[in-house]
């Protein structure tokens, strides 16, 4: 077994451990009917240990891959996203250690699983570093950022638990709508994973030539049946679906196709769940949070931001600026990725001021935590894949 193969086996092991731990955490919370925290803490401890084992396997993945590539595995979409899933679990472990709340694990672990599954849809072969990335600052800067994001994301998890408990699902309201929208978007990620896995397993491939936005002829490979065609496309493979509509040159119709298939798969899955359960997803989860101490959740959410914000400032701004000064001769260049790091930072600064200065605690703070996570994900996914810049990985 090569080091690279070993590394991917460790990742599988971590994935499975997280999966099991999710259910044990769920059991811990659900088993606690009477609100005496006895069984909750016993099952919680078991789940915590399983999570730690998973996390160790996850670390083993990280360092064996580092050994295999010769550089910190934080240099492409697969590696960075997987690392984010890992630090999310890491952030959870820190806060679990401080506050011992199984319900948090029940929310964080499935999200981490989704993120790792999402990451695995990107090319995962070990790849060499382009000159700009050949620097120790790659490991220093990116790992600090991803650790900070993992911790900050815990505030969203705590916020979600808070919202699940306080939002009244029996009455029509904006809160109920948005809470369900969060659930729906998590299912959409699963939709993407299912769509990619399905079409990859089926070996789908369709090649097209097209004219790009600079007016140059280029070729592209679709891995899913083309719903949308590229600008002035011509099919190069036979027996493939004809695109339903042609897109202008600025739109990457191949990515739009992937998004659309994910939407289709995700939406079908979402309605299947609702049909079977006859309830909103939020309502399915509601019984799990019955005994949650709201004040404690609020405090965990705040604590996560307090721990994460300085780390994020250091990694995403200060280390980033130092490296940019060395590699690109200027510490700041308004590259989209840089700008979104700044936006994330400004957002959490606003969070802190609203909380301290305007007394935004409890529900408001919980919503802000969830929005913060959305911004982090936007920076990770949309900025990398859609808004091309110096940092673009794909």
């Amino acid at each position, binding site marked *: 077994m090569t080091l690279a193969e070993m590394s991917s086996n460790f990742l599988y092991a971590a994935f499975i451990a997280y999966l099991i731990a999710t259910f044990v955490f769920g059991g811990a919370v659900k088993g606690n009917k009477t609100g005496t925290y006895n069984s909750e803490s016993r099952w919680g401890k078991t789940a915590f240990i399983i999570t730690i084992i998973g996390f160790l396997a996850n670390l083993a993945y990280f360092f064996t891959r580092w050994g295999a590539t010769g550089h910190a595995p934080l240099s492409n979409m697969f590696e960075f996203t997987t690392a984010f899933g890992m630090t999310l679990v890491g952030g959870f472990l820190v806060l679990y250690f401080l506050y011992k709340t199984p319900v948090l694990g029940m929310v964080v672990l499935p999200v981490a699983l989704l993120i790792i599954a999402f990451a695995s849809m990107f090319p995962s072969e070990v790849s060499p570093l382009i000159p700009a990335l050949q620097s120790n600052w790659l490991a220093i800067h990116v790992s600090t950022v991803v650790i900070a994001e993992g911790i900050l994301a815990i505030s969203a998890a705590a916020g979600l638990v808070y919202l699940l408990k306080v939002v009244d699902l029996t009455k029509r309201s904006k809160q109920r709508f948005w809470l369900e929208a969060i659930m729906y978007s998590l299912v959409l990620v699963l939709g993407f994973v299912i769509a990619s896995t399905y079409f990859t397993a089926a070996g789908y491939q369709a090649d097209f030539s097209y004219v790009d936005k600079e007016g140059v002829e280029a070729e592209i490979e679709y891995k899913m049946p083309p719903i949308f065609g590229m600008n002035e496309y011509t099919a190069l493979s036979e027996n493939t679906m004809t695109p339903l509509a042609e897109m202008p040159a600025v739109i990457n119709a191949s990515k739009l196709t992937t998004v659309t298939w994910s939407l289709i798969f995700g939406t079908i899955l979402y309605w299947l769940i609702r049909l079977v359960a006859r309830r909103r997803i939020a309502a399915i989860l509601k019984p799990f949070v019955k005994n949650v101490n709201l004040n404690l959740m609020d405090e965990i959410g705040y604590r996560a931001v307090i721990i994460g914000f300085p780390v994020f400032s250091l990694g995403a701004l200060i280390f980033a600026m130092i490296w940019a000064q060395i590699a690109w001769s200027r510490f700041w260049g308004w590259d989209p990725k840089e700008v979104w790091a700044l936006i994330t930072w*400004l957002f959490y600064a606003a969070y802190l*001021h609203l909380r301290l200065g305007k007394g935004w605690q409890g529900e408001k703070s919980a919503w802000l935590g969830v929005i913060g996570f959305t911004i982090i994900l936007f920076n990770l996914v949309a900025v990398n894949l859609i808004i091309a810049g110096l940092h673009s990985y794909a």
Partner: protein
Amino acid sequence: MDKMQCQCGHVNPPGTILCESCGRSLTEKEQNSKLVDMRYEGTARRSQTYNKSIIDKIWNFFSSVKVGVGIIVALLVAAAIGTILPQEEYVQVATRNEDTIKAYYSDVYGEIGRIYHFLGFHDLYSSFWFIILVGMLAISLIIASLDRFVPLYRSLKNQRVLRHESFINKQRIYGKGYAQEDVLAKAETKLKELKYNVKLDKNGLLAEKGRFSRWGPYVNHIGLIIFLFGVMLRMIPGFYVDETLWIREGETRAIPEVPDYALESKSFELETYSGEENGGAFSEAVDRVGSVAKNYQTDVILYKKPENSLPGATEDMEVVKEYPIRVNQPLKFDGYAVYQMDFKLDELKAMTFALTNKETEESLGELTIDLIDPEKMYELENGATVELKGYYPDFSGFENGEPQTATPLPNNPGFLVEMTTPETPKGETSFILIRNTIEPFGDNQFKLEFQGVETRDVSGLTIRKDSTLPILGLGGLIFMIGVAQGMYFNHRRFWIQQKANGEVILAGHTNKNWYALKKDLEQVSAYASLPAYSDQQEEIEKQMKKEGEEAL
């Protein structure tokens, strides 16, 4: 406004909420609330006290957290808008000017692009209004910090151990009950063990920990202000140099904006991954993507002119150092740094021709034309000559019969030559291009036959000096110290008082992390048998919820 005298006799500055001495609530609103507002220890802040003159109004505007957050959010939204379409500097156009950039936005992005450009969003981050927003952020940071710093400093400096009961029982953590005689002494022992500073006064105790963390926000704001000041400085000439230098292999050039220094490029190298590195680990990735760059490198020699040499003299330069400039490894000297930023491979350097008799194919000899610095006249054997009457390094066509050149770079060289041989003493004229020869005055007997070409690489280097970096670094460092100080430490306090009848009252307060405060209190309670406490905020919330449910 008048000074406010408390029942205890202490005279407080106007605007005070909690008496500086005993802690009684001074305003009616405060007296009626269940919990005291501890945010700035109930001290008077200028912004809450004066509201008359225009200066007061401006002061109050900028010291408001609402306004501060408004500015932060405005910046955040503006920054996001700037990423919808690429900024002007990242746009690739053949020739850069306002019109081509404008055309680019509407050609590539259609109507949206046109509007984006029209609104000035293509250069958002250096727009006037964006810079004003940043300036307002700085003003707000300064005023808001001053507004709170002074009163907070005063009150934290004069903390009293004994406070009025109404101050104690309106704290979030509060307890009351009977306890043993030696409760204060025992609490003191345990609190000291937990690293609290303990002060005793008569029948009261004040334990305090982590007071310095209260200065965190002010320290971090100072860091931010220093950083913004540094950014402002770079607009002053001399603090900041940003130049580009294109240098060919073998060339020596003066470094722009850097007096007395010159750079020679020995060679430029571009390496790509073969897929064999690292035991073949990368072969799959290299196969998928095609070629992946591994290294861009310019080997240079840095020269310096001696002190008293004549301007323009280049012979007597001293070698300072030889250095391979690579991405991530700039050449540094004397406050300047030279970066590997760009390159052009295989620029034409020289072309070699043979003067040939068209009929017999007999050669009269060869000549090599240096494309950067061509000679006027080339003399061959047998007295034949080739005179270069015109040189067009980047030939772009004829205008009014005159050959034109688009740039001074030898991308597509054209030569107008006159060839003279013993057989054709009058000379023959020919216009030579790559793969094409024009004979404007009819058929010639001789031609210049292309023999070969020499090429070389060109490095695109960036020269930077940034004297503001130390200031920015200092600002960043202070900011980090401030956030760590304010967020990784908390200011925790306990007040305990023992009354004459044996009753004990206690209260606790922290600016952050109530969970840890309660844990500390539980440890002290266990040791000193303190009366049970409650979290009054949680009680109030429970109460409100219950009332809400009953109302349904």
